[in-house]
């Protein structure tokens, strides 16, 4: 139901646009109306990769140009119809995506962006060298329809619109599916995504293949509209920039962004060219540039998000009343707080660490650590800053490969496996630095973690909703993460970690930055999880909260285990006090 309803706006938009187009008889305005969906689709293809994964591509012209040249050369040399060539172009674009993505995804951030920039520029010279400086589509006077050469320019616009509608719907489907969630998770934090059970390389490759295929298809259609293909016009810097411009102007990471950007910018550029440029040649570039600079300064994430934030603010001010119920819900969780957990769990061993070591050059970050985690136990891992606690977690969930030793999960050695594999084996974790998806609702944030177990989108949403209930956030489940307090964000991260129903949960400073009462609420939630059968290892500084929470402590200093045992015993251990507070305090505390 919800899905069908969300396809309505693009359909209505397309129909309205088609209506406007059919009313236009001036062939020049019609050409502009054709170019709007062309650049919108190109922007959407860029958005599919860069908008959702955050891996900025400066080189989408590579795919666009491959599509354009495939469509042009196929007609010239093999006399194939563009109706067939455009799908072929899409396939070539997909293959190009795979070939480009595979080596380039080793890079991140600016390095990825720059490497992508190189591809179209390199291909441009190849096509020049091949002697394809100027290629024109042969005119087919006897079979124009079969060769997509319409005398009526409306048909080009309608075709462009059809491609745009298809791309929008495809993007929307992806956005809501496991695919889209995986891409968004990669954008926020690739490491966290991997830890949440997402095979990031596989999803990124799928994204670039699909993105390349769409870009190549629209490049082919563009060649059909422009009728002339030159390396500069399809592989040039300006082409790659066009994708970025329309997407960034309209809004990155949303299906509407590139469409809004294209609908505004393409006609604007042309009107300026025709009107201002006729009076003062060249002024159109200046005005266009200034307009973009102003919009980017006022709405850095694009028009769509700016407008949505404004709308939300307006509706939010009306809805402050609902906050009362939220506090009630939180209080409810606090009420569940148990008196105290009786003794340490001594059930079966679910996680065993044997002689685990990891060094970075000369620094031994973790040395010879061994411990066991029993089913249903809460283990607190403490130690001063730099003791190697987070490194230990990174070794446990696969971010780092141990130099020595092994990690056994249910008796199986999992050391050195990729994080998403370990996640699938039932180990979830949260991070010291929170990585919420600020634009998404709490529920959507949590869904990311559910996919590791869920077989379908529905199941994932059910599991996510369940996790949200367990951490006591159901009252605010539909709020966007950007509006939440630190406590709620911590709980949301917790929900994301448990949404995939892990058996072992690694919590990295979940109480950091919380006040006393807030910490108590989170502690209550964690205790409830343990009562429900989860096994938990938690890193924490705040001793006070920890003493009431954990069944036993593992104390690290300089990467090695100093001691382990029951909370009462460990907190009185002089070695622990020395490690935390320094030698001169040992005497104080003993008294």
């Amino acid at each position, binding site marked *: 139901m919800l899905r069908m309803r969300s396809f309505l706006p693009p359909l209505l938009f397309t129909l309205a646009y088609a209506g406007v187009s059919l009313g236009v*008889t*001036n*062939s*020049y*305005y019609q*050409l*502009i109306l054709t*170019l709007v969906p062309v650049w919108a689709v190109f922007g959407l293809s860029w958005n599919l990769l860069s908008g959702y994964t955050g891996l900025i591509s400066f080189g989408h012209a590579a795919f666009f140009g491959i599509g354009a040249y495939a469509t042009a050369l196929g007609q010239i040399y093999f006399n194939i119809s563009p109706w067939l060539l455009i799908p072929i172009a899409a396939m070539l674009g997909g293959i190009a995506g795979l070939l480009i993505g595979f080596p380039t995804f080793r890079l991140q951030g600016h390095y990825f962006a720059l490497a992508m920039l190189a591809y179209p520029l390199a291909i441009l*010279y190849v096509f*020049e*060298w091949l*002697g394809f*400086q*100027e290629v*024109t589509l*042969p*005119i087919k*006077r*006897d079979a*124009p329809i079969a060769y997509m050469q*319409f*005398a*009526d320019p409306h048909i080009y616009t309608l075709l462009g619109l059809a491609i745009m509608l298809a791309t929008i719907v495809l993007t929307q489907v992806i956005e809501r599916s496991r695919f889209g969630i995986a891409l968004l998770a990669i954008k926020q934090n690739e490491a966290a995504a991997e830890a949440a059970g997402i095979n990031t390389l596989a999803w990124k490759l799928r994204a670039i293949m699909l993105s390349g295929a769409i870009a190549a298809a629209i490049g082919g259609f563009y060649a059909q509209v*422009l*009728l*002339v293909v*030159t390396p*500069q*016009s399809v592989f*040039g810097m*300006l082409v790659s920039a066009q994708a970025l411009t329309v997407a960034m102007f309209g809004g990155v990471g949303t299906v509407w962004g590139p469409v809004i950007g294209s609908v505004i910018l393409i006609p604007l550029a*042309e009107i300026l*060219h*025709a009107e201002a*440029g*006729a009076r003062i*040649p*060249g*002024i*159109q*570039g200046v005005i266009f540039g200034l307009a973009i600079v102003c919009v980017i300064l006022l709405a850095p994430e694009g028009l769509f998000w700016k407008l949505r934030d404004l709308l939300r603010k307006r509706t939010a001010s009306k809805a402050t009343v609902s906050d009362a119920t939220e506090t009630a819900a939180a209080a409810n969780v606090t009420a569940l707080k148990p008196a105290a957990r009786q003794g340490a769990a001594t059930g079966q061993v679910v996680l065993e660490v044997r002689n685990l070591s990891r060094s970075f050059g000369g620094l031994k970050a973790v040395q010879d650590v061994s411990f066991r985690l029993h089913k249903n136990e809460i283990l607190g891992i403490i130690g001063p800053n730099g003791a190697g606690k987070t490194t230990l977690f990174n070794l446990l969930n696969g971010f780092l490969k141990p130099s020595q030793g092994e990690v056994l999960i249910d008796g199986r050695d999992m050391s050195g496996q990729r994080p998403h594999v370990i996640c699938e084996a039932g180990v979830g974790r949260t991070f010291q630095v929170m990585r919420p998806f600020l634009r998404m609702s709490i529920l959507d944030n949590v869904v990311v973690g559910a996919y590791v177990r869920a077989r379908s989108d529905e199941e994932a949403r059910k599991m996510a909703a369940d996790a949200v209930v367990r951490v006591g956030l159901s009252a605010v489940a539909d709020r966007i993460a950007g509006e939440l307090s630190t406590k709620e964000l911590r709980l949301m991260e917790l929900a994301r970690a448990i949404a995939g129903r892990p058996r072992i949960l690694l919590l990295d400073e979940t109480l950091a930055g919380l006040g006393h009462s807030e910490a108590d609420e989170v502690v209550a939630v964690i205790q409830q999880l343990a009562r429900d059968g989860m096994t938990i290892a938690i890193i924490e500084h705040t001793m006070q909260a920890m003493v009431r929470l954990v069944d036993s402590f593992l104390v690290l200093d300089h990467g090695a285990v100093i001691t382990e045992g029951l909370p009462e015993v460990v907190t009185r251990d002089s070695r622990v006090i020395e490690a935390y507070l320094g030698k001169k305090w040992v005497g104080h505390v003993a008294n």
Partner: protein
Amino acid sequence: MNKTSKGKIANGLTRRTVLSGAAAVSLAGIARAQEPAQIKVGLIVPLSGIYTRPGQVMKMGAEMGIEHINAQGGIKALGGAKLKLVVIDCGDTTEKAKNAAQRMVAQEPDLVAATGSYLSSFTLAVTEVTERAELPVLTLSYSDLLTDRGFKYIFQTAATASRQSELGLPTLMKLAENASGKKPKTVAMLMDNTATSVATAKALKEKLLAQEGLQLVVEEVWTPPLSDATPLIQKVRSAKPDLLLFMPNAVSDAKLGLEKISEFGLGQGKIPTVSFSITIAEPDMLQSVSPDTVQGIMTIVANWGSKGHEALIAELKARYKEPWMTQNVISTYGDMWLMKEALEKAGKADRNAVAQAFRTMDAGPSKYYPGGQLKFDEKGRRVGAGVVIVQWQSGVPVTVYPPELAQAQPFWPKKS
């Protein structure tokens, strides 16, 4: 079968508008028999972006042409109707050129002919539109492809690129032989990898060098912009060729190369240097290099202000402060006269009639294009179109070939 009906739907609107426009013109002509009507002709050239400068120069030529035609009584066959220039900026990309052409045919339905668009890629895109709108276009662009598409509404006034190199090199060799008394034997070729240079080099290497008995001793290609010419010129110096073909397409590249040639003591014609494009003879060159550096350098171009154009050159200097008349000015000026010729022949201000007039025209020797006739073959190429060889002499590139157009005698620098 249904081809015609489709065509009718397609062009119905434009054609109807054109016809009504034409009807309006003739009606107006009858109504106001004393007052001659205006006939619109188009100039679609780059007036923004990196190709602005040639576009501006073409506009100067067009404006002068229109003014002269109108001053001499306009189109006599149409009761002295005056020509009016419609200037359209085709921007600096193929897409912009296509859009501008669409704008031209949509917003200016009563245009009878147009000229443009400097770069052959732009002309290709523009003529894809004008062909469908049945608007005749004259062009100075010389890519062979332009007139190889079977189009009926494009007319190429310059010799095509392949023809230019066929004509240019033998002429140059003759010039060398006459001036220095011996034929060059070895040649070095330094070129950028733009479309024009690549096409020229292909023709040279595949056929012409062998035909002229020239041995290619150095061949170097760069991608503009050239950052350092030292390694290129070093190779030339050690090979000591009889002839250097230097083919830049950007003024900055030309400057770097020529300065290095001069620095290495190869300038002033120690090694005779020849180019194949207008770049090296653009007025901009003198802003960055001294007249001494370019002295003696020759280039083969499609057209140039020459003997018989003295008054025009003087007017250009006075009005626009242009020191000399490049091919862009003289050809565009000539295009206006060619359009006038066609309008006189057609006897009506209708684009199809004008196109037909271009196709059937046979107006004798051409005054503003080098060589040949004012006549087009079935492909739309001007019959007998020739080339001009220009040589830098005391800070001015002057025409030295063909003899009937030459403003000065060529000098072939002797090897010391």
